[in-house]
């Protein structure tokens, strides 16, 4: 009988997640149970088609590369350096992204500057003075000295990963131009805490724009734009410009 259990067993077999005993059971049933074998064969055919499609795609990629080499070597014997392909791919991608995604010629950096405003520091004074090691960080943040605030928030986070501090620290780092630190804090916030998923995603989208990673920015903004949350309006507006 074609049961959910059998399908799950077969899927885990192909994903190498079965114990020795379970694997032995699969092998045994393949010899004696025709219906189970049909479930197994269908899974094998599907995985085969996935792998064949991947190989076919990579083969086409190599043919494209070969055409590029042949074209560039006609009339010249200059050897093309390996890095050329990565650079060429990046240039093509960037050109496509710029033309397709930014018909109004606003660059990701310009969009970031238009839309980025550091999150308001509305955290309770008790949190600032009693439980945290660097309460003056909030003061620097309020004054707009984001580089100093980012440094102090960093020290606080070494002691404890507090979601309020993570959000402020991400914003301070984003304002100070430390996008990799900001990205790390925002991803931690989304992954490990539930309190600030929405603002974290908004600022993550902006962070990716600042980094020039348009695809990632679009993915995050699309997700925000699909829900009715505080940042939805802004996300949809920005997404229209990014698209």
């Amino acid at each position: 009988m074609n049961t959910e259990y059998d399908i799950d067993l077969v899927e885990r077999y192909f994903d190498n997640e079965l114990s020795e005993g379970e694997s032995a059971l699969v092998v045994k049933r393949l010899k004696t149970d025709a219906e189970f074998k049909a479930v197994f064969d269908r899974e094998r055919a599907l995985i085969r088609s996935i792998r064949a499609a991947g190989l076919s795609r990579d083969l086409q990629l190599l043919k494209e590369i070969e055409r590029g080499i042949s074209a560039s070597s006609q009339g010249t014997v200059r050897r093309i350096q390996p890095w050329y392909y990565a650079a060429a791919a990046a240039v093509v991608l960037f050109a496509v992204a710029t033309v397709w995604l930014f018909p109004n010629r606003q660059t990701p950096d310009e969009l970031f500057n238009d839309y980025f405003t550091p999150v308001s520091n509305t955290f309770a004074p008790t949190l600032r003075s009693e439980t945290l090691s660097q309460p003056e960080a909030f003061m620097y943040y309020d004054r707009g000295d984001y580089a100093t605030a980012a440094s102090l928030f960093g020290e606080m986070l070494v002691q404890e990963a507090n979601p309020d501090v993570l959000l402020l620290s991400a914003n301070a780092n984003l304002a100070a131009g430390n996008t990799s630190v900001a990205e790390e804090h925002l991803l931690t916030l989304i992954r490990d805490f539930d309190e600030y998923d929405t603002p974290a995603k908004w600022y993550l989208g902006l962070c990716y724009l600042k980094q020039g990673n348009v695809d990632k920015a679009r993915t995050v903004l699309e997700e925000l734009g699909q829900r009715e949350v505080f940042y939805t309006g802004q996300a949809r507006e920005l997404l229209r410009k990014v698209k």
Partner: protein
Amino acid sequence: MVREDIIGKIRSGGPAGLAMIYEEHRDEFLHWIRKEYGCSEDDSKDIYQIAILAFYDNVRTGKLQHLVSSIKTYLFGIGKNIVRDTMRKSTRHIAIDQERWLNENLIDEPGDTMPEQLLASAKSALERLGEPCRKLVEMFYYERKSMEEIVAALNYKNAEVAKNQKCKCMKRLRRLCEEEMKRTSITINHEY
């Protein structure tokens, strides 16, 4: 680059890595195979492309974990096997069917046969699967990416979410495959 570094780069990298390896050994390989076996320029390129993909696939699937020789020697070895295999099967010149060679040597198990109708249905089902499912299952089953790598590339919340999504995508793919199987069997019956 150190050999083990290259293997690591292939496992974690994308198309740019494939392009770099391709270009790095291309001229020497083409020169060698034309001189050694008298292959035409087009056949030499076809064989080289197969050799590169076989090397890549062996790294990804874990069949090749440590290189005992250089990449060049490994690629030349695959090239030699492809030429001999082709010569054994035919005494006259026939252009190499690259996709067929890749499927027979990298995907199918020796002596393993599956009904053509099932394979065709699986292929059609995959074409109908849509994104992001197609990308996800391809990253998992073809590129052999870990769930953590898939999380980073496709922006899932965590590995568990990505795993659940992969299971849902496979469920959808099975359903599409069943639909294709039914559709094909109805078509076949109508032909008689």
